[in-house]
């Protein structure tokens, strides 16, 4: 990894927290990180100084958008589903609150050299890394189709935004509140055929990634899956996020989601052994 691509550990600052549907979009001033960002990488946030807190575990977040320049300097935008103690605190932080940011971390999405047809499959807030990917793919001349899924409209991320970059956008919700009632599994076969996708990029829960990887394989397409899993440190230190894969030598191994992923080739992951926690 060349030095200007390596991760940084910087003092950041909360610029804004916006509620959009069921999620919060948190924009953080994080000098240097936006410039090094590649789609599929993530950041680790720490809210307190270790000496002052009873809660030490940092949290990992997908980078949804970067703005390398702006009146506040380089910023990154994260999509947060507030549920845990940490995320509830994060989304309640006032503007200007200090946060420490480590990143960009992890292996990004591999992008095709040729202008091929790409299908992007995302579910819920974890679809976040697909949006900057869609922009980069379009810049490379790829044809981009997007399939977005969620339980309901409130949990659907960025359908409007996707329409600006993608040739076609399909939305499925479990309750039918927007788009077609159904799931990723229902929609994938037809979309793969219609888009004639050469590459499938997927981000979402494990079941969605598994479905996308399996459907891609059936259609003879490559797949790149962004695995979201609990990462105790996020920086490759603790071995707390094991992922069962088949390595390039054909041998099964346990690798770290945070450092050897989070983006994996879909056909390399032993999906049935991945723990969804």
């Amino acid at each position, binding site marked *: 990894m060349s030095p200007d691509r390596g991760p940084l550990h910087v003092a950041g600052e909360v610029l804004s927290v916006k509620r959009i549907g069921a999620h919060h979009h948190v924009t953080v001033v994080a000098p240097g990180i936006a410039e090094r960002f590649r789609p599929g990488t993530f950041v680790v946030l720490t809210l307190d100084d270790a000496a002052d807190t009873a809660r030490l575990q940092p949290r990992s977040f997908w980078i949804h958008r970067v703005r390398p320049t702006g009146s506040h300097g380089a910023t990154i935008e994260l999509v947060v589903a507030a549920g845990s103690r940490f995320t509830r605190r994060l989304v309640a932080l006032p503007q200007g609150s200090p946060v420490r940011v*480590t990143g960009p971390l992890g292996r990004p999405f591999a992008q095709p050299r040729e202008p091929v047809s790409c299908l992007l499959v995302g579910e819920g807030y974890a679809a976040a890394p697909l949006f900057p990917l869609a922009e980069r793919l379009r810049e490379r001349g790829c044809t981009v189709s997007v399939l977005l899924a969620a339980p309901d409209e409130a949990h659907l991320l960025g359908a409007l935004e996707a329409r600006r970059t993608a040739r076609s956008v399909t939305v499925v919700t479990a309750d039918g509140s927007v788009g077609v009632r159904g799931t990723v599994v229902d929609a994938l076969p037809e979309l793969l055929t219609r888009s004639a996708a050469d590459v499938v990029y997927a981000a979402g829960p494990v079941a969605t990634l598994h479905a996308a990887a399996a459907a891609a394989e059936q259609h003879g397409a490559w797949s790149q899956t962004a695995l979201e899993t*609990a990462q105790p440190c996020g920086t490759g230190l603790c071995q707390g996020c*094991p992922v069962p894969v088949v390595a390039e030598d054909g041998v099964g191994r346990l690798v770290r989601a945070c450092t050897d992923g989070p983006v994996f080739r879909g056909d390399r992951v032993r999906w049935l052994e991945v723990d969804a926690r």
Partner: protein
Amino acid sequence: MSRDPGPVTGSDAPVLVASGCGGTGRELDALGGLDGIGGFVTRTITLDARDGGPRPRVVESPSGFRYAVGLQNPGIDGFLALELPWLVSRGIRVAVSISAASLGEYADLGRRLGRSPGVAAIELNLVPPDAAGAGLFDAREPFQAARVVGAVRRDLPAGVQLWAKPSADPGRLAETARALAEAGADAVVLVNGLPALMPDGRPAGLAGPAIGPLALRCVHDVASQVPDLPVIAAGGVVDADDVRALLDVGAVAVQVGSALLHDPTAAARAAATLRGDA
């Protein structure tokens, strides 16, 4: 002691990266986490590769972490081929943590590491708190811990130090430390993670600031009661103040572990602050 093993740390600072909290070293280095560090203790290496335990493996706990990684590691062959060379090329002082199923395995590991260029020390992880039932040699009794030290010491070259990290049982630490010293340990590492349970009932270790005061007591007691045996402190160290407190009660060096999960630069920052003291 008849041997003079030399200082336990490199020339930089009396701050080391503790076992199991530094990845392979590369990940910390990418964030500047090894800058000015006196040494790096690897995660525990066993003779054969181990897959480790199920998830969750690391769980937040008040002022600390519970861990049950289960000694996931590439085995001695994988370590020597894939991880040690980078650490050596980085120029950092390397201590290799090991654990084994028998005295014979301990001796084998010691022999192979002892003749590997760049290994400055071996740290015996005598009683990993998260590996109960993992088939390891039972070294909870001071006598058995001393047998492990003896088995590894026998074939270890003079230039390689032998550190022993016993069970964190405060009641018998002085007795254990004496036995380890007599068997040939160059230093004792205090304290290991405390015995704890994961939420699902699996054996775990407890680490982090929650165990800091206990580590301080253990270091104090052993340093004062077994003055010939150098003590390397570990347990809940977050910043330079914690390092100073442990040095003040007699530690010769201090390891930073779980604080790195919160801030990967914690050890480097503590080392930099201490250099400013000098």
